[in-house]
């Protein structure tokens, strides 16, 4: 699985309340959620998110279990998130909704805003501006099986033969 896109950079400890505030959690509609993604820090974020890859620092997605955080980012058109580390629940929510998430210690220093990134999800190889290659942690195990199925719902349907 190869994912490509232009980089939007964010910092450390991006939390779920900033990704999608609690007042929007009475809906699970991806289109609605996409319009409010990152609202407290950048209400226009969704306008520039289409086709982007987010590069972030430590414990991206820390905080609440709200699955809408992953749904909103994906629905806004973000193709993948590469971060130094992820909060455990957000990481699973992203995978469960078919949003690729790559753990990559040191990535913030390597990549500038607007760079072009190509990610090989299975091998963990990340290519920056078609030249420099760095190795990140590949998605493996259960997470890869769920991601390949297109999310947890599809994975469950396959298991049950629905």
């Amino acid at each position: 699985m190869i994912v490509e896109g232009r980089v939007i950079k964010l910092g450390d400890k991006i939390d779920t309340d900033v990704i999608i505030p609690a007042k929007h959690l009475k809906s699970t509609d991806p289109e609605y959620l996409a319009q409010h993604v990152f609202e407290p820090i950048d209400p226009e974020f969704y306008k520039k998110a289409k086709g982007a890859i987010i590069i972030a620092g430590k414990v991206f997605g820390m905080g609440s279990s709200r699955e809408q955080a992953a749904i909103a980012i994906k629905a806004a058109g973000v193709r993948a998130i590469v971060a130094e580390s992820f909060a455990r629940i957000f990481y699973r929510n992203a995978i469960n909704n078919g949003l690729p998430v790559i753990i990559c210690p040191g990535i913030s220093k390597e990549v500038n805003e607007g760079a072009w990134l190509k990610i090989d999800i299975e091998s963990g190889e990340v290519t920056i501006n078609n030249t420099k290659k760095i190795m990140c942690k590949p998605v493996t195990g259960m997470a890869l099986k769920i991601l390949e199925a297109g999310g947890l719902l599809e994975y469950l349907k396959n298991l049950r033969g629905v």
Partner: protein
Amino acid sequence: MNKSLTEKILERAVGKAVSPGDVIEIDVDIVAFHDLTGYHVIEVLEKATGSNTKIHNIDSLVVAFDHLVPPPDVRSAEIQQSIRSFARRNALRNFHDVGYGILHQVLLERYVLPGQVVMAADSHTTTSGALGAFAQGLGASDIAAIVLTGKTWVIVPHPFKIKLVGSLRKWITGKEVALEILRVFKADYFNGMSIEVFTEDPKTFPMDFRATVANMGIEMNADALMFIPDAETIDYVKNERGFEPKLIAPDSNARYVDEYTIELDKVEFLVSAPHSVDNVKSVRDVWGTEVDYVFIGSCTNGRVSDFEIAAKIMKGKKVKARCIAIPASWNVFKRCMELGYIQTLVEAGCIVTYGTCGPCIGGHFGIAAPNETVVSTSNRNFIGRMGSPQAKIYLAGPAIAATAAVTGRIVEPGELA
């Protein structure tokens, strides 16, 4: 053997030996959700199975309404209505409607036992670690999968040992200990680890304090936080449920990635300053900060000992900052009423209700305005968490919050003569 509590619990749940880093599929003892995540869980269940949802084990499923309590708008009422109807259709036995309690408090009071695996659709599920359970929050889809199959997958975390020695000074509580851990380690250190807390003398660290520290395990980004079950655990379960629980312990030579000792006598009054839980400062460093609004309650600090401290500090005084106080459950509220704490808070001028998460999530029942300064006993001070993104939230223990309510400033309770 040299197994930690984390490994012992997970080995029982998977039925074979495990080591940190292993990806395993485990049996879940208790699965739970509340109203704000519950409707999402049910949506996923219905997408996966049509109208033919077969719950794996009715007795292991716990539901409690808390986030939209009481419903502040029609959509919230509708969400609760749909879950109520799901509960009726599936004849749920452990369903707690509006007016019972915050899910994590309900799990402690009625359901969780030492050594269990607890998974709920809310990040503060770590609270159940107070009883020595392996407890994690998960998203709605993962929880739906557990409701259907009784199982989930986890990566076995690397266990880290924290020792608590000595005893706390007056009105210093579990909250200050949680903030001390965040001051030393910051919010990203424990990612991929489980924290196992050993209390040298069980009596120095009562269950309420354990619940606060375990609750904030998620703010430390720990995979889980557990107190090693001891005499205090036995007493708590005996008092709440009338029987003695079986204990589970790590091996005496258990291996930990590292360990850290907290001398309780040295822990001081601390706050998390805006806008990050690990921006921990001594109260001395923010001394005199003017406060508009105080919130005492939540799944972090909404228990009897919290209201005991608040009532002792507020007795005979009037609030200068507006004050909202919310015991975590009907049980806590009732006990606080019997002990006179509710009356004291009401006489001081606090609005008091119970069993809602409203203010903590910026949902309802007390939203912060732009540029207001809030002192909250809850667990998060992210930008916009309690309302306006321009509000400044200080997280504190019950003594600092109650003192802020009656003085209108962040100072230590010793200031009150």
